[in-house]
């Protein structure tokens, strides 16, 4: 028999709530993944320590408190634009600057699809607020090639057809660039750690690891 019940729908936590909750949540997520990375990283792979992450979090909170016009340096070009405090860097780069080569998968720091380089370090644009990246050197997939000349890592992925649909590819290439910038001949473990934050739905992790292992 049908059970009558009046109920008000309660939604789950949306991205807006998630980000709106303040930079602390972002910092918390970063600490979680840092610990995970430290646990599986070989000694020679550099990962940010918890102290750096906490400092960063404090910085984010300060910036959120003072929103307004922000200058972002993206792919060597400076863009001054009005940025709302809750806007993620992924949102601004894609929707305000038109850099749609940066793809978004989970939109919550789990898949690595939105990976970019911020001051040379891989960063998830979906869990980073745009205001926190002011003054930093941001590089997206669009910023790798030098005119018609592909970046060596792009060439590696191109020549080895290291993708299927290619949706995860920009984020994965950015991880590989960060690794190969540090070491042009990485070990298997280094490659695996470097790519471990990049989930791929449809291609083949063996091919991806072996491609990056070829080095530049």
């Amino acid at each position, binding site marked *: 028999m049908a059970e009558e019940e009046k109920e008000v729908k309660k939604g789950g936590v*949306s991205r807006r709530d998630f980000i709106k909750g303040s930079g602390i949540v972002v910092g918390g997520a970063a600490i979680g993944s840092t610990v995970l990375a430290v646990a599986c990283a070989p000694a020679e792979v550099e990962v940010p320590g918890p102290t750096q992450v906490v400092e960063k979090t404090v910085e984010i909170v300060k910036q959120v408190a003072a929103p307004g016009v922000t200058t972002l340096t993206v792919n060597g070009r400076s863009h001054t634009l009005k940025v709302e405090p809750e806007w993620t860097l992924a949102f601004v780069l894609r929707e305000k600057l038109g850099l*749609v080569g940066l793809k978004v998968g989970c939109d919550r720091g789990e898949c690595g699809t939105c990976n970019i380089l911020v001051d040379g370090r891989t960063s998830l644009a979906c869990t980073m607020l745009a205001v926190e990246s002011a003054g930093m050197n941001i590089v997206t997939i669009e910023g790798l090639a030098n005119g018609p000349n*592909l970046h060596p890592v792009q060439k590696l992925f191109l020549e080895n057809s290291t*993708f299927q649909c290619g949706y995860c590819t920009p984020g994965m290439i950015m991880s590989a660039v960060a690794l190969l910038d540090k070491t042009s001949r990485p070990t298997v473990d280094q490659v695996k750690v470097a790519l471990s934050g990049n*989930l791929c739905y449809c*291609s083949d992790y063996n091919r991806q690891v072996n491609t990056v292992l070829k080095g530049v």
Partner: protein
Amino acid sequence: MAETYKETFGAKDYPYKVLGKNKPNITAADRVTGKAMFDYDYYLNGMLFSRSVHSPHPSAKIISMDTSKAEAVEGVRLVLTPFNYPDVFYEPRAYFAGHEIAAVVADTQDIADYACNLVEVEYEKLPHVLNMYDAMKSDAAIVWPDAEQNLETSEAGFFSEKTPEGLYAKRVNSPVQGFGDVEQGFKECDHIIEVDDIRHAMQHIPVSKGRGIMVDYNSSEPSKLVTYYTGSKGLYADRARNAGVLGVPLGKSHLVSPYASSFWGPGHIFGGPSFERANRIASFASRDLGKPVSHHYNYHEEMQISNYWQSLTRVKLGFKEGGILHAMDMTHTTESGKNTYTAERNAVRAGGMLAYNRNIQHMKLVTRHASAHRLIIFSYVGYGTMDGVFAVEMAMDQAAEAMGMDPIKLRQLNSMKKGGFDCAWSRPMAYCSAEGHAECFDAVAASTNWASKWGGWNAPNTKTGVVRSGIGAGQKTHTGGGWNGSAMLCKMFPDGTFELTSSMGDSGQGEPTGNLMMAAEVLGIPYERGSMIRGSTGFPYSIYLGGSTGTWNLGYSTWEAAQNVRKQVLTLGAQLFDNATFEDVDMDADGVFLKTNPTDKKTYVQCFAKLQTAPAFENRGGSYEVAGYAYRRALKGLCVPREKGACIWELDVDTETGGISNLRATTSDNVGFAMNPDALYNQQSQGANHGGPWSLWGGAVTDPSSGKLLSYNWIYDYPSTQMDITTTCILVELAGDESHPFGATPASEGQPNPHAAAISNAIYNAIGKRVIHTPFTPANILKALGKV
């Protein structure tokens, strides 16, 4: 470390300049630079965003909705509900936890998300049933209002009256599929094996790809009323489906999809409905607001789309002495729910009819589906087929054991044969145009040293120690490769470059590359001079295409269109030689030449100038083109090659923890002619890397009381982060489909199909226990060992 090894068996010395060589994917440059535009990447001026409100209840009537708070949010443009948009939602009803029951359109996605939470809904909760096993019980809640029970038998056809050539020429409507007299057939058998309660559950890899649709009513596209931006592999079919929502004439609508992320079936690249309301919400909202509306799935919806589906199968096999499969009786039940379609048919067609059609004389296949209050979205690849392959392969292994035969030998004796009966996708009668399972098994057996490792049926009893190694085999069969035609336009220009044009979508498996290679081969022009325009219904028709199936299917038209161009160019060139016809000349990278005197060559600029009659224009041939168009229709006799291959898995089972480790897959396919070997290796390797782990993973966690998905996290998703399977990929180049211009056959979509079966058979070889329920989690292994 996990690696991929590549081997080729039976390769011949082909006389081709382009085909047979590894070519990087033609779309690679776009994909590695971020230029590849997926549907989520289109931003139009003034575009709005919609998001859905979801029911928390698996079965409920919606009594009322208060949308006033949502509508009051700044930036909200429209709230669609079953009450003001019955054509979008059909009825005020939820059929699964997470069902879309309303939608908010707003200036940004964040505003829409926020406002969705403010929609107040009054529900009348109704009884529900959350899985197929409960749904089949007599006291189960009935899912569909007009149904008397949840279990339904799919309408099918029984094939009777063989022609003198042995073909089944007539179909009569019947709730079963098959032919012959199964009861009589089993009476004629010497060995009968029946395996019941084979359970297969398949969990997709839930990695979101921002899928959905953007509808631009009052399209900025000149002369078009609506433009759809989506991720599709069948643009014409999807345009028809989308245009049907608002009754827009096809000629006034347009669909754009240059790149599709790889969420087959469910993610609508095969036109699958996923969250079916996306296109309806975006279409009505765009029409009524006069703005482009983007409706893309959010994280939670993507997780739900990826959630598992399951099936239950009984297989009875009858053999004559020596292992000749004579009769088959199979009942396959698929879990069904919102948005289920055709997968159960595919399961029996591939696993039953097709895989072992060599000797079989009597066959009866029953397909059923049991509805539950779930969203069931079939397939990433495989499209339901792997359920059937798993079940039949479980039974074949047990039959081999019962008869004391090598399980590979038994499969080789009975596997698909050229001219054998094929069920095809939706039409009843077709015949296989190529075979090769036996050779594929030889290849994987040789590569793994099966003969010494398998050790016979007593081998499990001889294994001791905590960790025990096992080896098992499975047959790869797939119903991919339809016969509907596709069209191709080929053009050549006076500078010796060429271009293909097709509506073809692309999810990266290599079909644009394969077609370009074929055209280059026909024209005698370097592949690098070719380009392809595609991904829009502004271009020639193509069916739903994917991977090597797409290369195979569209290849007929590409070949014909390129031949057409070739003949025209040769005819133009021949005019530059005395008394020559097109048969006297040939062409290469630089121009047209007499076969008898290849050094006397005319440039393409000179040849194309012959298109103009006015002498003054003769040297201005650079502005012309030669074009050829071809549309390949159904193949005569409905011969389809199908996918065929084999695999062997090796692994270690820890008998104390139930854990499986040290996984090695060896996989082979008869590809006919490997036109682009690396693209095929890529397909094989990804198939093993997905098909295997799918069967090892426990799947998503759901709330037992509502079916609501609880495991909202991708990081701990085993299949999506596997990096520890060593794969050996083997291309077997036997006779492929003779009707194909280059003898190619499909070998991509079915790649994940056999791996669960081979893993189960390897587990048996290790521990002597049959595990016929997926997933092969430690808990299930320990249960089989009697330890829990």
